[in-house]
């Protein structure tokens, strides 16, 4: 229905209403704080 790349772009934009879109790549820095104060929400960018 919607291409994966288009869907990812839309997902990031749409999620702005829920939280903020960051730019860091998974695994490069940061990451989740298991059981702590941060939840990491991942999507595939276009």
């Amino acid at each position, binding site marked *: *229905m*919607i291409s*994966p790349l*288009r*869907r*990812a772009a*839309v*997902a*990031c*934009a*749409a*999620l702005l*209403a*829920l*939280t*903020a*879109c*960051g*730019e*860091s*790549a*998974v*695994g490069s820095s*940061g*990451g*989740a704080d*298991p*059981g*702590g*104060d*941060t*939840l*990491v*929400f*991942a*999507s*595939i*960018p276009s």
Partner: protein
Amino acid sequence: MLERETGTTIEFQNATDYAAVIEGMRAGQIDIAVFGPFSYVLAKGQDPGITPVAASVDAAGDQPGYQSYGITAAGSDITDLAGFAGRNVCFVDPNSTSGYLYPTAGLIEAGVDPAAGITPVFAGGHDASALAVASGQCDAGFAYDTIVDRQLIESGQLQPGQLRVVWRSETIAGSPIAVAGDVDPQQRQVIADAFAQKANVDYLTANGFCATAAECEVGEEGGWGYVPVDDALYDGVRRVCDITRAESCTSLG
């Protein structure tokens, strides 16, 4: 909204591909992720702890999914998928869920070889597939439901009744939001409830998260918001994979 509901900071991260998302979930680096239907099934197979909690819908009350249609021109003598045998059949592209994978499963179930039993034509888009059928370039074809029922008619490219729907797929599950297996079950429920009850245009606008409903796009393009889903909704994807053995069922992109 999610931060308020969960009492945590939400950090949004871009992953390079679904394989990285799955590995991140298994490694405790990712707590929540957006998957496609096929990548979710692959993820669940690799990490049974991953749990789908919600999928986006276009309007309040909608079901979290859509259908593929098998279509012919209104005057065609084709009345079902078996009648596609030996004909020029328009698909969307080989990676399209509703424009190829579900249709090929339907053809196989109808006794039609989707490669040798027809002449496949890849139109490149759902609109192109439907319009090629309407114009007679293809004897039959496939496209997703909304483009046949509404979009091409509203755009003036098709007249009502110009196409006939001779097959409807089972519901094709929408792209799920899934929670990692190591997230506390109580927190997982909070996340699920937040998506089900508050991640929608109505709530986000009424509570000041969006300035106006028109500016408030939630989920997929033009979406209204999210509704609950469970793993069983994706059994249709698993069945299509069993039938077609498609690359999408074994390879993460």
